[in-house]
């Protein structure tokens, strides 16, 4: 869903806060950092009236990260998500989410996030702002990113949890409102590893 798209975007942003260039899909090392795919998820949640909270994630995505620990403002990220890789738990539910009512994956096969600003809030938190493109509509979005280094990894592993929220109607996705919430929570969890 658009949520997941946002989530991917957030994840990309988070990584960019700290790291270098990473291809999340192929896990190609870039500037000594790579994404630990086993520890990565690009997820979203959305609430509805009279229906359980829907949890979903996207399986396929590509991302690039430029991370500068000393000058976070120089960090940068681009993420592209394969909309058709959405998984909300069952085949027919997936098909419905992919339909023209929601993600419309035939017309909009990808979603993207491009960061425009990375700010260090404190030693463990960053704020990443960027442009999210969903259903062909580009809007700014801001993610709060928790950053945690793994002491056991001796600085070679950094975990990120990025959270953001969009109003999906901003992107033209108005299906189900008001029974299905307009607000969509995006959570990207990932870990970057250094080979150096």
């Amino acid at each position, binding site marked *: 869903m658009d949520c997941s798209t946002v989530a991917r975007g957030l994840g990309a942003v988070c990584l960019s806060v700290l790291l270098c260039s990473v291809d999340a899909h192929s896990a190609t090392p870039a500037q000594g950092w790579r994404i630990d795919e086993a520890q990565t998820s690009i997820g979203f949640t959305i609430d*509805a009236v009279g*229906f*359980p*909270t*829907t*949890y979903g994630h996207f399986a396929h995505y590509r991302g690039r990260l430029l991370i500068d620990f000393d000058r976070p403002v120089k960090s940068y990220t681009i993420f592209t998500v394969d909309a058709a890789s959405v998984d*909300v*738990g*069952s085949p*027919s*539910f997936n098909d*419905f989410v992919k339909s023209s*009512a929601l993600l419309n994956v035939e017309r909009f096969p990808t979603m993207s996030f491009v960061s425009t600003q990375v700010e260090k809030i404190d030693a463990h938190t960053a704020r990443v702002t960027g442009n999210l493109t969903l259903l062909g509509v580009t809007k700014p979005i801001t993610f709060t990113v928790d950053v945690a280094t793994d002491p056991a990894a001796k600085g070679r592993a950094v975990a990120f949890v990025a959270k953001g929220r969009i109003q999906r109607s901003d992107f033209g996705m108005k*299906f*189900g*409102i*008001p*029974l*299905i919430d307009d607000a969509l929570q995006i959570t990207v969890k990932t870990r970057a590893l250094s080979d150096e």
Partner: protein
Amino acid sequence: MNNRTTAWPLSLRLAHWLSAALVVGALGLGAFMVLAVHNAATRFELTQVHKSIGAGVLVLALMRLGLRCVIRAPKPESAARTVAILAKAVHVSLYFLLLLLPLSGWLMVTSTPVRVPTVVFGLFDLPYPLAPDMVRFRFAHAMHIVLAVALAALVTLHVGAGFVHARVWRDRTLARMSLWAD
């Protein structure tokens, strides 16, 4: 001359029991998925099945009413006047509910802003003749719940009456509806 009352025609007996299975299935599944299923994907899948079964209930009810128009119902077992009137009232009410309950469900799925296509048993798309409308949806939703509770109560009464006929009064009322009736 044989004094035994005759059985219902096979077509109506088949329709009755198929309808009974679908009604119990739709009521049970509807209650289960709403009250006990808290996983979105599972709820979604079960709702699709529930809608298909409901469409089947509606089609069968219409078929049974059509059959009742062309096939004469067999003479009932003799019973006290009050019992006969009560039985008639329950049977007429059951037919009404077998029509109104699935129709209220249809009104729900065509009125809700969450318009998920209903592919009846994977065969065809149920048409949605009305535009989404939250007020109409809330009305249809409330009606669906009230009618479902009413149908569950009447089905219980209907089943209980069949038991009383067979085991207490020991008449042929239930036997005449058996798929193996002679």
